């Protein structure tokens, strides 16, 4: 469709229904592995660990039969930021950088250390985007919420509201298309009355004023619909006592193995470089 098109029909993430060993993992296991990749690639100082962790999403993608090119597309939006950061690296020098200069144009030079930093940063970003993209393409909305509940279930025993947190996530997912739909309907209603958004208005106040016909009704409608949903949930005895779960997402033996492996990976990612450093 041309004209005013909105993301009403877009689903969150890019979950693709499929049956693979990765899809079959329990959601909490998937979260653990997501952490097992994210933590080392974001905070490990060892290039080897970062690169090894960055390979993991690719291994999982092959196992999950998700096309890597499909995942890389999610990486495109962050490219400008990486380019910007890389530019800063090149223009500003590290204090006391004694590594060999690889290339120099006038006063601007690229040292080996700078080059490594740029590459590492790109690898870290790519790995994170790949891991998140993979997670959303193998985990449906329901599991994304349930996994949080499972992950926090040990804390639930001491009163942590794991189920409420999971439900909040599930409802937030539900509301994205709802709010988008309301937004679309209001934009169309105002456009039919000749509203012209974002053109011809100068200055922040006038600009904000132009959006008033959108913000007020969309907010009101979103709140009304949230209230309706809250009523419906309450009418169905939400919060009336200890709850059970319809879907069993606790996992099987494979999950137990995979979870231990994930935790082992995180531990190893930090312990191994330290060990190697102390030996050498």
């Amino acid at each position, binding site marked *: *469709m*041309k*004209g*005013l*098109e909105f993301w009403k*029909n*877009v*689903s969150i993430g890019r979950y693709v229904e499929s049956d693979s060993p990765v899809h079959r993992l329990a959601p909490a296991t998937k979260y653990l592995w997501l952490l097992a990749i994210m933590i080392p690639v974001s905070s490990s100082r060892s290039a080897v660990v970062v690169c090894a962790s960055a390979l993991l999403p690719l291994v999982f993608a092959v196992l999950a039969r998700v096309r890597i090119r499909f995942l890389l597309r999610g990486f495109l939006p962050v490219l400008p930021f990486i380019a910007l950061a890389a530019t800063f690296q090149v223009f500003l020098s590290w204090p006391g950088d004694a590594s060999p200069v690889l290339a120099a144009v006038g006063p601007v030079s690229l040292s080996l250390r700078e080059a490594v930093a740029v590459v590492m940063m790109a690898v870290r970003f790519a790995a994170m985007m790949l891991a998140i993209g993979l997670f959303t393409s193998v985990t*449906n*909305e*329901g599991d994304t919420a349930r996994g949080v509940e499972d992950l926090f279930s040990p804390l639930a025993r001491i009163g942590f509201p794991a189920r409420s947190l999971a*439900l909040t996530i*599930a*409802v937030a*997912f*539900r509301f994205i*298309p*709802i709010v988008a739909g*309301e937004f679309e*309907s*209001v934009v*169309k*209603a*105002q*456009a*039919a*009355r*000749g*509203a*012209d958004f974002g053109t011809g208005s100068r200055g922040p106040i006038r600009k904000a004023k132009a959006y*008033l*016909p*959108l913000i*007020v*009704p969309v907010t*009101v*409608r979103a709140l009304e*619909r949230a209230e*309706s*949903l809250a*009523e*419906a*949930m*309450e*009418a*169905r*005895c*939400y*919060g*009336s*006592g*200890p*709850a*059970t*779960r*319809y*879907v*069993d997402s606790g996992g099987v033996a494979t999950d137990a193995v995979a979870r231990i492996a994930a935790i082992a990976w995180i531990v190893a990612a930090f312990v191994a470089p330290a060990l190697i450093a102390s030996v050498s």
Partner: protein
Amino acid sequence: MAIIGIDSLGYTYPGSSEPALSDISLDIDEGDYVAIVGANGSGKSTLVRCLNGLLQPEPGTVRVAGADPSDPKGRVAARKALSLVFQSPPDQIVASVVEEDVAFGLENLGVPRPEMRERVLEALDRVDLLAERARAPRFLSAGQQQRLAVAGAIAMRPRIVAFDEATSMIDPVGRKDVLALMDDLVASGIAVIHVTHDMDEAARARRVAVLSEGRLVFVGTPAELFASDRLDGLRLGRPRSYAAALRLGIEPIVGEDAAALGARAVRVLGAAITVAVSEKASAGGHATGGDPIALADEAGAAFSLRDASMSYSNGAENQCRAVDCVSMDVPAGTVVALVGKTGSGKSSLLQLLDGLALPDSGSALSFGVDTAGRKADLRTVRMRAPLAVQRPESAIFEPYSGDEVAFGPRNQGLSGERLVERVRAAMDAAGLPFDEYRDKPSRTLSGGRKRRLAIASILSLDPDALLLDEPTSALDPASRDDMLRLIRGYASGGRTVVMSTHSMDEAASADRVAVMRDGRLEAYGPPDFVFGTGWDSSWGIERPFAFELDEALIAGGRA
């Protein structure tokens, strides 16, 4: 045995000076079937919310299956005994998978998993959604979503199910299914409370309770209610077959359908009635006559579509064709009713006509302007034939009614005296007299008036045509009549109206009817053609009552 006991109940919303309900006393028996009727704002929904503790009545008491819903302990018991089905289908779905949504209430009650599974499947089977159990609810039709809500209610094994205007936002076929489910519940001994505006629906209940301005003004059988001379004073109508029987001059029977009424009329009144109807028919009246409308000259048309197609989410996996190769002309000065099931493409077609959506292929002309043309000024096109989207009142944003109506003409560049004149004319035409309503806060208006304010705010553009998407949906009968009067008044000035509707009785009073199915235009012609010779029952819509009755009368005469 009364399962619900309401004793001198009152309720005042916080911040309001007027009570929403006062002095309501009513008993509902085990297995009863009670309709609660009344105009918008009469307190029907408030009453239902007091029954399960969503609101706490003050003063008065409520007992549901022996429990007091205003007491935190009694509330769970009351909610277990009384399930609610709400008005808006998508707003009561919690989970992202059908069967998980049915299980939501059971999870909250802490039902063990094996039993939960059994009850979920049983409930889904009962509403005929077993095949959809693994699907995402947002891909279900509104009617299916409402059946899903019923499944969630009955999985709780309640003793009462209350439907709060649960049929007002779904198409006729979906509505029929939900009404059949109510009968099914009653047959299995579960009490049903049905809050509705529709007298045909109320007539199905065993008892009717009428609320007016927060007071219970009538409780009795439907027959007693419809025979009552207080009906007009309460701004309530009669069921269609009941009113038709009165017009025919025979004894009305509550719950009779058009076919039964027709057959009975022929028995009672003899062949004379059949002759009269047949004559009307051969003179080009109902039941026969009329021809489909062929494509004519685009020149005299207000709107003109040629092989217009339009899809949502182009290129994505969930791409769908909303409008599929539609060609039609709407001559200036005609009223066209668009009918078809939910999701058949009515809203999308209206957006094509308005220029809010542009065709992917084919062409759409609005008053001679090709909306996809490079030179088309879409803003002018839209303001010449503006669209009122579904529930247009949700787009109201100005605190004061007069300002809201002035938004459009201001965008056209009007100001001063001319602006005031436009706003005055539009508000007067919409039945909201300018002098009285200009400074009324828009949010305090009743539902029906809010809807009319929204229509006034496009009338003030002084358009050559109106495009209305379900302008009468979810309005009570009196507000619906006001709205139809507004539309007729506008059209009587020789201007064009294209409106979608789920009421075939409304469609029958249009000049032309366009039937949509799966994005295609299935039929386009005068009502006599579409609902007469051209009728196809596979369209998934109903026929207007008058056509069904005429057909039954003619059939009765032949027998």
